[in-house]
C-alpha cells in the first residue's frame, strides 16, 4: 500500500525524534503517543515525551520476503526494541549483519531512510536502531 502523504507527514516529528507520551500519574511511557492512559483512565495526566533512543533488542527477525516497496532492502533485521524508559517499539536494526543480531543487544536510535515511493515519490525518513559501540557515544 502507498501510504498517503498527509499520513506520512502528520507524525514526522514523532518518527524523526522518537517522541511519544508519558502518563505523569503512573509514570508509564508510550510510543506512539497515547492520549489516554489505559491504566489510569481519566485520572491519567498525559504529557509529550522525547525518548532517549537507547534500548535493548527484545526480539528480532530477519525479513527475507519484503512487503511492497521494501524489496530492495532484503535481507534486513526487524526488531522490537525495549527502550530504556520501558516502552517498546518496532524498528529495523542496521549497521550490522542481520545474522549477528542478538536478543539483549544494546542499540540506539539512528536517523535513516525508511521507505521510498518509487523513483519519483516521497522519501520517508525516521528512526531505525544500530548497535551501540564506542564510535557512537
Amino acid at each position: 500500500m502507498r501510504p498517503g502523504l498527509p499520513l506520512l507527514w502528520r507524525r514526522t516529528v514523532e518518527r524523526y525524534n522518537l517522541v511519544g507520551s508519558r502518563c505523569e500519574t503512573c509514570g508509564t511511557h508510550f510510543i506512539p503517543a497515547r492520549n489516554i492512559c489505559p491504566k489510569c483512565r481519566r485520572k491519567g495526566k498525559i504529557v509529550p515525551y522525547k525518548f532517549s533512543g537507547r534500548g535493548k533488542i527484545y526480539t528480532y527477525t530477519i525479513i527475507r520476503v519484503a512487503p511492497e516497496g521494501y524489496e530492495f532492502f532484503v535481507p534486513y533485521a526487524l526488531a522490537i526494541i525495549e527502550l530504556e524508559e520501558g516502552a517498546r517499539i518496532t524498528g529495523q536494526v542496521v549497521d550490522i549483519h542481520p545474522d549477528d543480531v542478538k536478543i539483549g543487544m544494546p542499540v540506539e536510535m539512528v536517523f535513516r531512510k525508511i521507505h521510498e515511493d518509487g523513483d519519483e515519490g516521497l522519501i520517508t525518513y525516521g528512526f531505525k536502531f544500530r548497535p551501540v559501540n564506542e564510535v557512537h557515544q
Partner: protein
Amino acid sequence: MTIGIVGYGVDIPRYRIKAGEIARVWGEDEARIIDGLGLSEKSVPGLDEDAATLAVNAARRAVRHAGIDPQRIGSIFVGSESHPYAVKPTATIVAEAIGATPDLYAADHEFACKAGTAGVINSYALIKAGEIEYGLGIGADTSQGRPGDALEYSAGAGAAAFILGKERVIAKIEHIYAFTTDTPDFWRREYAKYPSHGGRFTGPPGYFRHVMGGVKGLLAKAGTEPKDYAYAVFHQPNGKFPRAVAKQLGFTKEQIEPGLITPLIGNTYSAASLIGLAATLDVARPGDKILVASFGSGAGSDAFHIEVTDEIERKRNAVPVRLVITNKEYLDYGTYAKHRKKLIM
C-alpha cells in the same frame, strides 16, 4: 566580535569498498590506481543512507557537542551535490530532525565540493549581521562516480556539520575569503546520474588555481604566512591533490596530515574539507591557528583563518573522526553496486 565554532559532528557510513575490488572488475592495475589517486578505499552509503540521513546524524552529534538548545539555532544550510530531492530541501529535514523548527532560516546549497563551506559562510554572515544566535553549516554527500571512471575509486559518502555562534566558541573564525571564477572542470547536468569532468583539466585550471587563489587571498587578508598555522586543511578530491597544493603553497606534511581523511574514506565532496577540519580540531590545542581552503568545481574556493580557543579543552568532541572511521565493513563489488543503486530492479 568573536564568531566561531561551538560544536561539530560528522557521520560516515560504515561500509567500504577497496580500490583493488573496483580495479578487479574493470581489469585495472590496483597498485597503479592506489598510487595514482593516493587512496586505497572509499566509504559507501548503506541502503538506507543518503545525504539527508548523513546530514541529520552529523547535525545531531554537532548539537550534542555544542551542548545548546536546538531551538536557538537560527539557520541551517545543507550543501550537497547529491541532495535526495531535486526539488524539496534537505535543510528542512535536518531542521525537523534536530528540533530547530520553525523559527529559523533554512536552505540547500549546491556548489560541487564546496557547498558545505558555503553554508558555513552564510551562517557566519547571519550571526555577524546580528540576525541569529547560532547557525549551522553542513556538507553532506553520497556522490556517484560513473562505473569504471576514475571517479568511481574516489566518490565516497559522509557529512560534517558545524555550529557557529558567539558563546563558548572552541575555535574563532577570524577571517574568511573566497575566490571564484567560471571554470567548467566538472559538472552534472540535470537528470544525469553521473557527473562529467574535464580529466586533467580538473587539475591546474580547476583545483590548483582556485585553492591557491583562495589561500593566497586569505593570507593577504589575515597578514599571515603558511608557517603561522599549526594545521592546514585543503579540499581533498583524492590523496594526491591536497599534498601537492600544500607543497606548492609552502605548507608541510605535518601541517596537513591530521586533516587528510580522503585517503581513508574517499572524497566526501561537500563534506570533504569540513571532515578534514573536524579531524584537525579533534587534535588541535588552544592557540593553534588552522587554515582551511575548500574547493568546488565550477569553480571556487572558500578559505578560513581559524584560531582554537581554551574552550576546546573543556569541550572535546566525544566522537572523533578517526574513531568513527574505524567502524567499517567491506563490500564486494556486487553488494556495492546494490548499495549505489547501480542494479536495475
